[in-house]
Each structure stands twice: as C-alpha cells, then as structure tokens.
C-alpha cells in the first residue's frame, strides 16, 4: 500500500493529466447541454497544457530567469549551467495554447448563443427535435 501510494505520488502530474483528459472527453461526448460540452473542451485543453508543463519540469530546478549579474559576466566569470533551470520551451509553447484556447472558447460560446436565438434551447435533444420537425 505504502509502495503503491509513493508510486502514484511520484508521477502525480501525469495521473492528473490522464484523469482530466478523460473528464473533459466524457463531458464533450455524454453531456446534453452545449455549455457543458464547451466546459469539457476547456478542461481537455488545460489537461494538455498540464502535460506539456510537466514535461519541462525538473526536480530542484529554479525558474528560467538568468540573474543580471550572471548574464553580464557570463562568458568570463561563471558559466550559466542550463541543468539548473527548468526547461522554458514548453512554457512558451503553452502560452500560445492558452490564448488560442480562450479564442476557441469565445467562438464556441458565440455559436451556442446563435443556436439559442434560433432554436430557443441549449439542450442537444431539444435542438434535434426541432430540426426533425422542420
């Protein structure tokens, strides 16, 4: 039991990533309400961001900002050791992903609002019922 707990805790970020991915996928497929589906999409996107940031993480590493002093005399006095810093490349990629995610959310919510104006409902089965009757 103790061993199993430490095994799970050692990779806790990745377990959380898998659980959040499945929660988002479940909400997108099973939920009947359009806004609930969009909430599931947001959870799905943030799960992928969590995966990428976890890949760049280093145990005992510091944040990827070079001190001013070190940068100025870097070549002569103390060399900058890249091993001490958390990998900033996934962070930069995920900055773009967060902004794209908010843009996707805005487009999806505006489409849901237009559907509500047209059909008077956000529930998928009611919309399908009205589509069938046309």
């Amino acid at each position: 039991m103790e061993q199993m707990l430490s095994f799970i805790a050692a990779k806790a970020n990745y377990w959380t990533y898998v659980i959040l991915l499945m929660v988002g996928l479940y909400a997108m497929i099973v939920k009947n309400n359009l806004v609930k589906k969009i909430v599931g999409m947001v959870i799905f996107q943030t799960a992928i961001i969590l995966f990428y940031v976890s890949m760049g993480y280093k145990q005992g590493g510091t944040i990827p900002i070079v001190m001013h002093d070190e940068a100025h005399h870097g070549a002569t006095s103390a060399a900058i050791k890249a091993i001490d810093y958390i990998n900033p490349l996934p962070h930069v990629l995920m900055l773009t992903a967060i902004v794209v995610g908010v843009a996707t959310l805005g487009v999806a919510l505006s489409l849901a609002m237009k559907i509500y104006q047209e059909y008077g409902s956000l529930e998928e089965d009611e919309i399908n019922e009205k589509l069938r009757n046309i």
Partner: protein
Amino acid sequence: MIIPIDLIILVLIIVSAIAAITVPDLLSSAVILGAYSFLLCLLWTVMGAVDVAFTEATVGAGVSTVFCVAAIFHTSRRTKD
C-alpha cells in the same frame, strides 16, 4: 507526515473539474471553472512556470469566466444534466 502542496492542489483540481461538469446550474459551472483556472495558476507557480501562471490568471481565469457569464446571461441558466 507532510503532504506536499502540489499534491493538495492536484486533488483540488480534479475535484473542481468534476464539480464543474456535474453541477446542475450553468452559472455555478462557470464560476467553478474560474476557480479551476485559478487552481491551475497556483500549480504553474509551484512548478516554476511563472509566465504561464500570469497568462492563466489573466486570460484563462479572468477573460474566459467573463465570456461564460456573458453567454449564460444572454441564454438560459437551466440545464438537464
């Protein structure tokens, strides 16, 4: 036994994600999604990704909550699931 702060935040993230898709009111769902984004922002800060944390707090938690609340204000709060 000392529990590390990132494990506590990860558990809270899972709980709030499940709460956001099961709560039977869309406005509550939007607010819980905002709380979920702020918890993620805390997690990025713990993991040393401070730039991602800034962006998540302003864009992810702030703007997307406002979008959700505005969309729900223009449509309806009721939901069957």
